[in-house]
């Protein structure tokens, strides 16, 4: 931390926090009630032009169809509304505040140019069902995005419409299912490793498949012999994440593909971790049949506190025909949008959602790709992997890692063996990170590693921030081993709130505000 103490000796405890305020605020930190507790029950912060309010009271056309009692929700003036949400925002951690080491989430910087571009009237203010002659630029953009994705993955086709990674998984598995059914083949099983992200089994189930787990080798990869043993006439697809959720590249990925195809199954690759290899490896060269790409990870569309994202799926020649509608095709100098498909293959999957997918994310992702270019994207993968290995190298002395041999890819995985006997859990350690200004890493995932701590820095972290992060964790690790358990089990102490009672929340759920409270 030294670098952060220039001219700033750590503040004497004694002095701190005498004279706490009676108010719900403290210095710059404002406490804030719910919007429903701020009054404004018959106010509104939206004005209408008097001329528009002419004959609005005539509801004769809707007799008997209007609400029994009027909608009761508070409305606040713009100043009150802004203050409410600005205050709330300051209770959040964000990429723009510090390194956000959530493994598997690829919390990278979100370029502001992309936000600006997505707000151009020509993108944000066009209707999905306008005549295609009036949205040629939008279709051209989708076509360009498709070209980038196909070229980067070395796959012949891409379905853009999936709205997130999980939706993309569903798209891929349904295409696979359609391909099997087209041959009258009713396979019912999907194989996936225990380390798989929760969406993989959930998606397989949603696609109507039973899920069987594949064992893992001591070095954190798919156990080929177990895979071979479980492959059979009932297996429709093998779902593998690569690089996998342990942050490791599946060395035998081509062999996995070969065995899978040999068994008449398709190879679905979870591409959520594509950031580690973009520009250096093309999944198409590995034998992948379908892979979703989280534009909100690799291509940096903002996570926005939970979404929205986009999960386009690249498809192999074998599956291309089974893509969902709609899709864009070049036609006579312009572009056409195919919304109705003729023929069994085309109709097999049908439609995954209304309209054409996440245009707002397409614009941001394409802006990101154009900005980096093919050379920059390759650098992205290299820096992401370099940063993760740097963290692994710096922390390995103090923390134990389940797969010490060889490099990791974009994320460094640790377990909790090193905490044995300290009375401190992975959760405690993670919560203590909050007190030193960092967001916890991904915890207890993947399931195959005990007390897993999965750290993904991404390529947009500077050496300085990486060191600040590693220094903080080393200092915490030392404290943990020194037996300063209270600092962890009680953490966080410096966040807007202390640890929250999740059990209470689940035992008697309060999912909305009510006047009774």
């Amino acid at each position, binding site marked *: 931390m030294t670098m952060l103490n220039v001219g700033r000796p750590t503040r004497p405890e004694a002095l701190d926090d005498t004279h706490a305020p009676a108010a719900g605020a403290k210095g710059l930190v404002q406490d804030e009630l719910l919007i429903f507790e701020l009054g404004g029950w018959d106010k509104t912060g939206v004005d209408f032009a008097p001329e528009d309010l002419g004959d609005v009271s005539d509801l004769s056309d809707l007799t008997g169809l209007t609400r029994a009692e009027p909608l009761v929700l508070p409305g606040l003036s713009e100043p009150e509304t802004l203050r409410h949400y600005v205050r709330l925002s300051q209770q959040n951690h964000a990429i723009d505040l510090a390194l956000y080491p959530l493994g598997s989430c690829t919390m990278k910087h979100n370029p502001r140019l992309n936000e600006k571009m997505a707000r151009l009237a020509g993108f944000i203010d066009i209707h999905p069902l306008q005549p295609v002659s009036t949205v040629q630029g*939008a279709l051209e953009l989708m076509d360009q995005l498709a070209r980038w994705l196909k070229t980067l993955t070395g796959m012949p086709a891409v379905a853009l419409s999936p709205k997130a990674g999980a939706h993309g998984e569903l798209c891929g598995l349904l295409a696979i299912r359609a391909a099997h059914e087209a041959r009258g083949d009713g396979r019912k099983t999907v194989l996936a490793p225990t380390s798989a992200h929760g969406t993989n089994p959930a998606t397989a189930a949603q696609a109507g498949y039973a899920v069987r787990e594949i064992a893992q080798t001591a070095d954190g990869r798919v156990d080929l012999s177990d895979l071979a043993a479980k492959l059979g006439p009932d297996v429709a697809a093998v779902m593998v994440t690569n690089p996998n959720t342990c942050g490791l590249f599946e060395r035998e990925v081509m062999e996995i593909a070969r065995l899978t195809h040999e068994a008449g199954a398709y190879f679905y690759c979870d591409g959520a971790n594509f950031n580690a290899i973009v520009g250096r490896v093309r999944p198409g060269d590995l034998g992948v049949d379908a892979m979703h790409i989280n534009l909100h990870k690799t291509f940096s569309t903002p996570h926005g506190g939970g979404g929205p994202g986009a999960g386009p799926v690249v498809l192999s020649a074998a599956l291309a025909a089974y893509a969902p509608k709609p899709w864009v095709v070049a036609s006579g100098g312009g572009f056409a949008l195919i919304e109705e498909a003729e023929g069994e293959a085309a109709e097999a999957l049908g439609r995954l959602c209304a309209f054409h997918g996440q245009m707002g994310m397409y614009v941001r992702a394409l802006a990101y790709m154009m900005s980096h270019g093919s050379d920059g994207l390759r650098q992205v993968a290299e*820096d992401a992997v370099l940063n993760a290995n740097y963290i692994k190298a710096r922390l390995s002395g103090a923390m134990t890692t389940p797969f010490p041999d060889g*490099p990791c890819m974009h994320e460094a995985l640790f377990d909790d063996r090193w905490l044995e006997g300290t009375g401190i859990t992975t959760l405690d350690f993670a919560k203590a990170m909050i007190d030193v200004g960092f967001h916890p890493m991904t915890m207890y995932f993947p399931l195959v590693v005990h007390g897993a701590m999965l750290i993904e820095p991404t390529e947009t972290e500077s050496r300085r921030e990486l060191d600040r992060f590693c220094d903080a964790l080393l200092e915490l690790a030392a404290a943990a081993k020194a037996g300063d358990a209270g600092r962890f089990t009680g953490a966080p102490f410096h966040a807007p709130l202390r640890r929250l009672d*999740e059990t209470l929340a689940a035992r008697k759920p309060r999912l909305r505000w009510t006047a009774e409270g």
Partner: protein
Amino acid sequence: MRYLPLTPDDRAEMLGVIGAASIDDLFVDVPAAARLSAPVDLPAFASELSVERSLSALAAKNRPAGAGPFFCGAGAYRHHVPASVDHIIQRSEFLTSYTPYQPEIAQGTLQVLFEFQTQVAALTGLPVANASMYDGSTACAEAVLMAHRLTKRRKAVLSGGLHPHYAETSWTLAHSAGVATTRLPAAVDNEAAVIAAIDADTACVVVQTPNVFGQVTDVTAIAQAAHAAGALLIVVTTETVSYGLLKTPGEMGADIAVAEGQSIGNGLNFGGPYVGLFACREALLRQMPGRLCGETVDAEGRRGFVLTLSTREQHIRRDKATSNICTNSGLCALAFTIHMSLLGGTGMRRLAQVNHAKARTLKAALAAVPGVEVLTGAFFNEFAVRLPKDAAGVVERLAAKDILAGVPYSRLDPRAGLDDVLLVCATETTLDEDIAALAGALKAEIAQ
């Protein structure tokens, strides 16, 4: 490169710390055959200025809804979003934060979700709402699966007034789950046909109001019929603004209400990202898909919020989860919440009234055009008209005159045999002069 902080020196030193000779050493696990030795064949990096130029050029090839007369609806609606909404959602702390899995440093997002859920519950007239779905169509499909889990039945009845994209999306998910869908023929009025289609195998009935033809229906009778047969009623709404004025799904006996929330706080965006609203009866809670935010207290007894009942979700329950959804529509839900907090009940009702009034003006204008027949009876802010010509052709020709006349029904459902039907919509953004322009152009067009 402006987004990459590492310098060549940093890289060299870091490789040293790692003990690797070169970056390639970190990619040794990649099969030699699959290692790319050079960048793929795509354009090289570009300056911010040139990227802005390229994308602005593409945007300029589209005709923004706001640039002239515009009457498209049918599932996506152009409304005025207050400037403060977009300002707030761009705050770093909202824009660049992740799903609030660490509640101690995510109370901002969590409290917003709690407010969102409360607002959605009030709008739909149902007690519980989740923290958002991808959009209205996927919310609808998930509702069908939910009904299937709850009733263990394998048939879903889809009204002929349901938006064709919603019907198709529901078919896709239902089909893969082994649930059959009975999609009734497209029609403005559907009550009788829907009730007739309900049987003992029916898991749920999916009806939309205002429906795709703009028809507003009191679905109470359908609810009774469904419940009598042990089926659930799913009420779909694509125009959230109508909640400000119309009977709520809850009032009409809906078990599940799903809606497209785009109208509030979110732009047209060519179809996405949007925000799916999902609400249901208390008793059905445990089978609900998606995230839920709940109230609790912290170690010092202070009120706080957390994501809760996660045992329904994929990251805990895996293949037994109620849905595979993970990333949802957080930021769109935030925009929705802010806009709704500005509107309040008063503003929402007024907004709905203005929309209805504009649509009545539009109806009067179009009804006066010789050859135009209004098909919709009770409507909110959109309705269907029959033209003496192929609607798609008319729309194309009017577009050439810079008038976006609406959505030809055939665009949504080419096989329905309704090629002469045009769906038109008016909102608070519609100008009377635009209405006059449309009526005039339509008259000329038909006269030819």
